[in-house]
């Protein structure tokens, strides 16, 4: 029995047989035919079709990455598209095909030369070789599978693994991970990658146990080796003995369907973050008390034009009917800068995270989209279960924005009135992601029904540390005292305002909310609602029940008195790192 350590990503355990995922291995070329037997015209057409299919797959991957994690990941795919359309590569390949070479051989030969050229270079260019391989593999997958009459942009195998598989990979792409069957895959372990990488977040939303960033030692594991993936403790156990296997809780914790309160009776709402229609039913299955963050961006991706009011209305009512007695917090469109939607023609920005994002676009150049979305939402609020609807504005940083958004809601309501269309005004709230919003939280709650803290962006903006930049990963942690103070300021915004008739609530919908080790701190800071990947909801609910709110409050005070992240971790009883 050997133990490899990595970073626990999905806090579940699973046992199964190792199976390496090497997407490139399936791409064996057929024998090279005699040039005279090659129909060059037909091969050129196949090459063109393969490029079209690969381009579509790359754009899907880019949109997916932009939706899930933002611009840096998405930028990689833009470079992939540039390689795909590279005139030098394309012209060379077409010339080779013209000389009587089948498309797949021409692609393989030319890319091999390019990869070799890049690998010979020093420094960061080695990465480019990986990008070239990725583009080549996409082309070859289409070219090779087209022979069998099918078109695929990744090996079919990954969606069709035998039950009890522990998937091992260098790293997984989001599209790979999204294909996985959670019933068949007992766990995932990767050589590289971090907990907040897109693939890790998707694995969590699929409830697949995962340990990422295990490092080079993972490569020594052969296919078929029995492995325990322990995502709670961040370890991979090779050939686990019976005691270890039994000690590991390999079943997902049972769903806790009822609402929970602390041991002394303070109710805490434990809701789910949802980013696609497919995630709604699993969220209900895991016993989430509604949806605390319904991202609407998925409705806008993979299409040529924005979704209609009717389409948006349907998507929202579907979420409401899955949670008839619960709250569903719908975030209005949060695109811009890093999250690209081709048909919206967003400006190129040098610093998109500080640019035209979220509510800034909705109140200005994309006010039309905003109003359409509000119409769909106000109508949904009047449907059955619609009283649970809440609407949240992203990236708020000024009071004027809140006032403008609220008056946009009022004017849409007046329009619907005039048209005789049934509607209701839902709860309105703001996402607290900017330091500005945290500073103004007490004024925001005067005008709104709720606030929800987005810790991923809040940490990024408070610490001035790009969440996608590994070089500043140490800064990107909500347990830094400065971030804790911003959270505290927001959570305290409703204190003392009750006399004025405010009963606003404050929740949290960042990754931090789903960590059971931090639940006591968050309860102590005064949050009313925690929204997370549904997979962690049962564990957080169990944790809430054990908490005494007076003790939690004392713990929060102690954490807030700390001057360093290390001290905070110490107070919370967490390991040094």
């Amino acid at each position: 029995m050997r133990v490899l350590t990595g970073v626990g990503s999905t806090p579940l355990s699973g046992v199964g047989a190792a199976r390496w995922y090497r997407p490139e291995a399936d791409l064996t070329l057929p024998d090279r035919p005699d040039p005279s037997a090659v129909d060059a015209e037909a091969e050129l057409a196949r090459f063109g079709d393969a490029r079209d299919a690969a381009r579509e797959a790359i754009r899907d991957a880019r949109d997916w990455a932009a939706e899930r994690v933002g611009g840096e990941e998405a930028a990689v795919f833009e470079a992939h598209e540039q390689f795909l359309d590279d005139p030098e590569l394309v012209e060379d390949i077409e010339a080779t095909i013209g000389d009587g070479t089948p498309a797949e051989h021409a692609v393989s030969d030319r890319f091999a030369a390019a990869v070799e050229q890049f690998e010979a270079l020093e420094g960061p260019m080695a990465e480019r070789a990986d990008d070239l391989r990725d583009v080549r593999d996409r082309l070859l997958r289409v070219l090779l599978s087209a022979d069998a009459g099918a078109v695929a942009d990744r090996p079919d195998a990954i969606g069709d693994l035998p039950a009890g598989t522990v998937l091992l990979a260098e790293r997984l792409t989001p599209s790979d991970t999204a294909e996985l069957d959670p019933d068949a895959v007992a766990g995932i372990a990767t050589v590289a990658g971090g907990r907040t990488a897109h693939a890790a977040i998707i694995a969590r939303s699929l409830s697949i146990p995962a340990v990422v960033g295990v490092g080079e030692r993972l490569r020594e594991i052969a296919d078929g080796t029995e492995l325990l993936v322990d995502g709670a403790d961040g370890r991979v156990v090779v050939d686990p003995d019976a005691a270890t296997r039994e000690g590991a809780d390999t079943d997902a914790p049972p769903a806790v369907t009822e609402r929970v309160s602390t041991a002394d009776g303070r109710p805490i709402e434990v809701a789910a973050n949802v980013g696609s229609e497919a995630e709604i039913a699993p969220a209900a299955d895991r016993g989430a008390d509604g949806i605390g963050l319904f991202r609407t961006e998925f409705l806008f991706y993979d299409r040529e034009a924005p979704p209609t009011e009717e389409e948006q209305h349907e998507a929202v009512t579907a979420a409401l009917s899955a949670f008839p007695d619960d709250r569903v917090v719908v975030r209005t469109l949060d695109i811009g800068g890093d999250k690209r939607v081709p048909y919206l023609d967003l400006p190129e920005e040098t610093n998109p995270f500080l640019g035209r994002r979220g509510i800034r676009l909705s109140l200005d150049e994309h006010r039309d989209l905003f109003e359409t979305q509000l119409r769909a939402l106000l109508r949904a609020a009047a449907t059955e279960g619609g009283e649970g609807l809440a609407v949240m504005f992203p990236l708020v940083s000024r009071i004027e924005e809140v006032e403008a958004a609220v008056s946009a809601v009022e004017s849409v309501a007046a329009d619907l009135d005039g048209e005789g269309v049934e509607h209701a005004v839902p709860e309105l709230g703001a996402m607290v992601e900017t330091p500005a919003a945290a500073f103004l939280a007490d004024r925001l709650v005067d005008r709104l029904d709720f606030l929800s803290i987005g810790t991923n962006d809040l940490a990024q903006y408070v610490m001035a540390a790009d969440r996608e930049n590994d070089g500043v990963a140490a800064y990107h942690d909500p347990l830094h005292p400065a971030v804790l103070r911003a959270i505290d300021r927001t959570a305290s915004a409703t204190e003392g305002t009750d006399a004025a008739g405010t009963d606003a609530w404050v929740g949290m919908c960042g990754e931090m909310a789903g960590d059971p080790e931090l639940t006591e701190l968050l309860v102590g800071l005064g949050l009313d609602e925690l929204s997370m990947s549904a997979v962690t909801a049962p564990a957080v609910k169990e944790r809430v029940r054990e908490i005494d709110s007076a003790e939690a409050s004392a713990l929060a005070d102690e954490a807030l008195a700390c001057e360093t992240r290390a001290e905070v971790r110490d107070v919370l009883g967490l390991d040094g790192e």
Partner: protein
Amino acid sequence: MERTVTVVPEAGLHARPASKLVQAANRFDADVSIGRADDGDEGLVRADSMLSVSGLNVAHGESVRVVAEGPDAADALDAVCDLLTSEVDGDANGEDDAESAADGGDPT
């Protein structure tokens, strides 16, 4: 027409800067080529190819020569040289950023 400039982006002609340069070169009808200033005509490669541009492996501070020919050559030359002589803000790739930060080479 042509111009010789010193490469400003910390990341050199890799990652985002290369990507932006190729995008810019593709926007014009003019044929734009680029190479190390010391390498003469033989060192020139086409600027509309990601493969060629990033294959040059040009680093920050190197001197490069840009040649443009065609109807909008002047504009193309301006656009490409602008990119070569301005830092790409904030969105250089992670590792490049980490390196420059470690060197204390913060471009701001």
